[in-house]
């Protein structure tokens, strides 16, 4: 038996793990005044991880750790983006966490472990590692939500998140055990092969599939498994909301691809899960967009907007074609960019003891700071899907994929609900440009935040004008991996 496995495909994960442990210990010797050292070390780790991911990348899938770990193009692309997203999150949330006493070593270690969990999920080729990665991510996130111990809201949000997350994990595990019962293997490539040939216990396989889809629905926050999303988004400290809302969606997309498109990718099975995803997607679009109209809290509104974005993502996946998966991946990248930018602005406007989370706080932002108002305008236009921005192209490519399989009526429903959704995005633009500010103080930000927000906002415009390179990358990544 061959015991030696190549370690190099897992170098980014190993580096991250070692550095996370180093930071955990090193932080003990750093006084509160020098906490910025921990911050720098964390950013260095993430950047190093991104560089390692880039240099260990390869087009052909490489399997290691007895086939439990896969390093393919999709994994590389998503891991690289995850690292970059977490770096951005930490830059945006620095001032906020300092002002609220959350700028502590635990925040950074938990963020690093959560990133490790995401990377493990992205590279999982075995249901066991996939599940362990998911738990690693979720546990870190529960703790991060509750990190502000004295806030009743945050504690309640953490509790809800924890209970529903545990329920979702239970569902996912139950489904996985059914898949194991039906096929006798937990390896995703082996599952793909077996389910392609058709197993005798097809009924058990589909039964397990139902639970897996439900578990994934919980993790994505798609209707009817969405109840936790608004409460957690609103209750968690904004820096943590930014974390939950952005980078983990890459990992969630990856496990959807691995479990559904890859392991259950046989035509007969695609027919089965396509129906379930369709219901979830249409309901998410409807409830997400309609409920967002009624919100006066921006964080809660963005939570419902996330639900509707997840509906779009599912539309891309349910088409079951390479183009559709590519469109889904493109959508998730764009979604994360938009979320980063929007929450970045919220964090920017929040000060010590003040959360800029009500819509009224955005009144007259144009007079206070024309540049940030313009960036927010780009982000909102992109979320609504208005042409020169990339949000339009992301929605268009998903709709194209759905029309390709002949479900034009689904595309019509999606367009109608996006139109309804455009209302609440444009309402923010209206508040920013046509209302008088409640608080005329100009907005101040440190240089790195300003630069990164500018890049983030302008990326909406740039990617909207030249979306092709990213789109090609997404489609190639999916093609090489499935």
């Amino acid at each position, binding site marked *: 038996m061959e015991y030696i496995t190549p370690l190099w495909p897992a170098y980014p994960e190993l580096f991250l793990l070692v550095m996370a442990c180093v930071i955990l210990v090193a932080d003990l010797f750093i006084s509160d005044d020098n906490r910025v050292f921990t911050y720098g070390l964390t950013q260095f780790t993430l950047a190093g991880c991104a560089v390692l991911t880039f240099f260990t990348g390869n087009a052909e899938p490489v399997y290691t750790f007895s086939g439990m770990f896969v390093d393919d193009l999709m994994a590389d692309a998503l891991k690289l983006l995850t690292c970059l997203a977490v770096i951005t999150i930490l830059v945006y949330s620095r001032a906020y966490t300092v002002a609220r006493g959350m700028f502590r070593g*635990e925040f950074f270690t938990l963020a690093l472990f959560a990133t490790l969990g995401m990377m493990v999920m992205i590279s999982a080729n075995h249901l066991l590692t996939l599940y362990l990665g998911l738990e690693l991510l979720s*546990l870190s996130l529960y703790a991060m939500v509750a990190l502000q*111990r004295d806030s009743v809201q945050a504690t309640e949000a953490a509790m809800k998140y924890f209970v529903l997350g545990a329920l979702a994990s239970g569902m996912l595990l139950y489904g996985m055990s059914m898949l194991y019962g039906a096929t006798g293997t937990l390896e995703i490539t082996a599952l793909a092969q077996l389910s392609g040939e058709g197993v005798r216990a097809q009924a058990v396989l589909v039964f397990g599939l139902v639970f897996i889809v439900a578990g994934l629905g919980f993790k994505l926050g798609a209707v009817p498994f969405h109840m936790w999303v608004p409460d957690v988004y609103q209750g968690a400290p904004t820096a943590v909301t930014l974390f939950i809302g952005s980078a983990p969606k890459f990992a969630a997309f990856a496990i959807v691809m691995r479990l559904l498109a890859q392991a259950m990718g046989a035509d007969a099975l695609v027919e089965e899960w396509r129906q379930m995803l369709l219901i979830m997607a249409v309901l998410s679009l409807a409830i997400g967009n309609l409920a967002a109209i009624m919100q006066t809290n921006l964080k809660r509104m963005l939570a419902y907007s996330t639900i509707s974005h997840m509906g779009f993502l599912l539309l891309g996946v349910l088409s079951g074609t390479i183009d559709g998966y590519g469109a889904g991946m493109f959508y998730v990248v764009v979604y994360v960019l938009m979320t980063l930018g929007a929450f970045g602005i919220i964090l920017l406007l929040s000060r010590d003891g003040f959360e800029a989370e009500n819509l009224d706080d955005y009144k007259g932002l144009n007079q206070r700071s024309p540049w940030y108002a313009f960036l927010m305008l780009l982000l909102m236009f992109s979320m609504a899907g208005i042409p020169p921005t990339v949000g339009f192209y992301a929605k268009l490519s998903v709709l194209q994929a759905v029309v390709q399989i002949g479900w034009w009526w689904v595309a019509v429903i999606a367009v109608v609900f996006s139109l309804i959704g455009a209302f609440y995005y444009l309402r923010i633009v209206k508040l920013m440009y046509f209302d008088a500010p409640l608080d005329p103080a100009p907005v101040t930000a440190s240089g790195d935040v300003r630069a990164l927000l500018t890049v983030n906002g302008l990326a909406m415009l740039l990617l909207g004008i030249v979306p092709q390179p990213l789109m090609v990358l997404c489609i190639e990544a999916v093609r090489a991996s499935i």
Partner: protein
Amino acid sequence: MFWFFATILVFAALRVITARNPVHAALFLVLAFCTSAGIWIQLEAEFLGIALILVYVGAVMVLFLFVVMMLDINLTRLREGFWSYLPVGAVVAVLLILEMMVYLIQPYFGLVEAPRPDAAVAGYSNTKELGRLIYTDYVYPFELAAVILLVAIVAAIALTLRHRKHGKYIDPAAQINVRREDRVRIVSMPSVKKETPKDGDPS
């Protein structure tokens, strides 16, 4: 024999969530662990069965019982709203169970599909085999599980450790390193003559 254990297991698991007294619930959980250990031993996974009893029943549940006895849990408040949600919940649960049964009452979902494993050869060590697998094929998930435990420790400490501002804690090192200047202040004062009170003075 399997059915015997399975019936007890399901009964015990049900009692865990329906028992009124949390101590009873914890004891039923012990019963559930013991019976599932019995099922494992029947499957010739002796090590897992014994580990379950040693670790869970022996260590975890004892701790659990301790905590339950220490905490004064208000049951009536927890049970509020139970009856108002019961009808809806029950209808949904019954519907779900019926749907699952309709779907699953089909061939190919019986014990025929999962036959008993062949009896192990003489000298076969379950423990050794498990150990070999954990450190070879399953080393990656094994390490991941370790990382998850580490995160659990970090999270637990981050969420519960509080430094008291006015605690009565004394730092021995600080006590030893104390200097005379910290404690004693020598004040130089000009000497004054004490005035002797005169007779009849009220002070």
